[in-house]
């Protein structure tokens, strides 16, 4: 199981477009990937736009990732980088 966390600085928070970019990136990995606003959870399926959008994460929140599977480390690293790069350079 791989873990990661990152501070979300995107001005509008994790809103429509960042959620699309993030879930699309998550779907490129085979691992089961979960995201949370708190290290205690609740853990949300990071591949579901509907569920990640429902988190309504505001700017300056900490995001936690965890992944299980063959490419778990790469998945967490890619998602953390995506958030750090302000959602630029994600899958088109």
């Amino acid at each position: 199981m791989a873990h990661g966390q990152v501070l979300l600085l995107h001005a509008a928070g994790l809103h429509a477009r960042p959620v699309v970019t993030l879930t699309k990136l998550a779907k490129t990995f085979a691992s089961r990937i979960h995201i949370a606003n708190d290290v205690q959870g609740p853990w949300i399926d990071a591949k579901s736009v509907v569920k990640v959008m429902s988190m309504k994460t505001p700017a300056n929140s900490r995001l936690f990732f965890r992944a299980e599977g063959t490419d778990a480390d790469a998945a967490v690293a890619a998602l953390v980088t995506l958030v750090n790069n302000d959602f630029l350079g994600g899958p088109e």
Partner: protein
Amino acid sequence: MNAPPARARLFAGQPAAPGLVLGRVVQLANGARTSAPGPAGSERELVQAVAEAASQLRDLMTRCAAEARKILEFQVEFLSDPVLLEPAQEAIATGTDASTAWRAVIDVHIADFEASTDDYFRHRSGDLRDMRARVLALLAGDDIGPLRLPERAILLADDLEPSRFLATPWGTNHAIALRGGSPTAHVALLARARRVPMVVGVGDVAVHGECTAIVDGSKGTLVLEPDEDQVAGFARTRARLAATQIDEAAAAVRPARTASGERVDVLLNIASLGELAAIDPAICDGIGLVRTELLFAQGPPDEESQLAYYERILRWAGARPVIVRTLDAGGDKPMPGVTIDGEGNPFLGVRGVRLSFAAPDLFKVQLRALLRAAAAGNLRVLVPMITAAEEVQRVRALLAQAAAELAARGVPHAMPPLGIMIEVPAAALALDTFAVDFASIGSNDLLQYTMAAARDNPAVTPLTDPRHPGFVRLLQTIVQSAAARTLPLSLCGDLAAQPEHIPLLLSAGLRTLSMPAAAVGAVKRAIAAWPAGGGD
């Protein structure tokens, strides 16, 4: 039969997209597409309608600009998420018809977003309503086609779905007035990008029969049945607006020059990363003020988060300078857990660098992040509220300590040029005593401290006039003092964003001005017009 003389009616809403249009009101009956509950539908019917809605939106995406595509893509992804229909499938299995089941599913999400205290999330409910309408129309066998508006038309509706906006061919004589809506809704963003004037929140406007109207998307007003004077005023304003807009947009992307050909550096003031995405880098010569207060709004961020923030701005700016101001809390910017509560006069109390000295651990984290960012680009550090020369020495000592800590950790860093904000009159008059690499005039504070008149007290606002000879002389003194030691000098307060005050600043000798991006076009035009009668 003659109608009784028309009476102009003014409805004040909120500006959503600038521009001015006079035209005939065309009403869009919202909710007309709501179908009566059908027969107990099969689950497959709903799945197919949702898939078809996603497919229509994907098709629309191929004909849209990049920004609009991203808005539609959210809907496509939302509709394509298998999780979405899970609750509906259960309802249908127990005998509910497809339309009712769909409504139940999507209304839960709409209510969830509407209950949010965050504007961004609250206004995403408009996208969900858009999806709701499209799927309901498909289930009822209707089609959501584009709107066909006549020339010179004002669309009046409760709300407008983003996908419908995108499917509609808009002309330069079209405008939108919404009874509801919000300036931050997706459809408002699209209207701004597409330059369709739009006003939202005009309230309960009822129109019967033929009716002309004026939409002023800059003021946020709708006038029904305008009188002759209003129509004449409309024509004058529209002509002036059109000329000004073209001039400002053209001026914004050109380097600023005075009428006599002298170059003026135009820098931007930035308060958050989100602003950068909407700014054409070509309009500026660098970033003259990065405020860091928003970064600290949810508690002090750690070194890595701050570094990432500064590096993103440096990447945007390329080789151009980026001036980052260290935390400027206090005064009119209280910050929970950082500023001191209950000070008798916060503007004359522990604020700016005084607060940073009072919380050295917090300050050191920011200095380390800035030192690391300086290794990645053309970064300069600006310290607010400097009063005495010793304070600069103290900042330099802290910077040296922070650099030593980074060196001990083996972390790459560089010593950035260090500058001060000139806000305190004593610092302005003794600029030659400060061992700094550059200086930036904070005109808001310098003005209120010089005039002894608070900028947030309307009773004394008339006294905060920058044309006062005392303030003008102070500006001249600062400029001469900086010039005598070739110290780079800029001004980053509100004065630099006000075209009417540009002649005053240029006459005082300033040649570097920093302002919000929205002011750049108008300010560059004011620069080009100075000095009056100069140049050819």
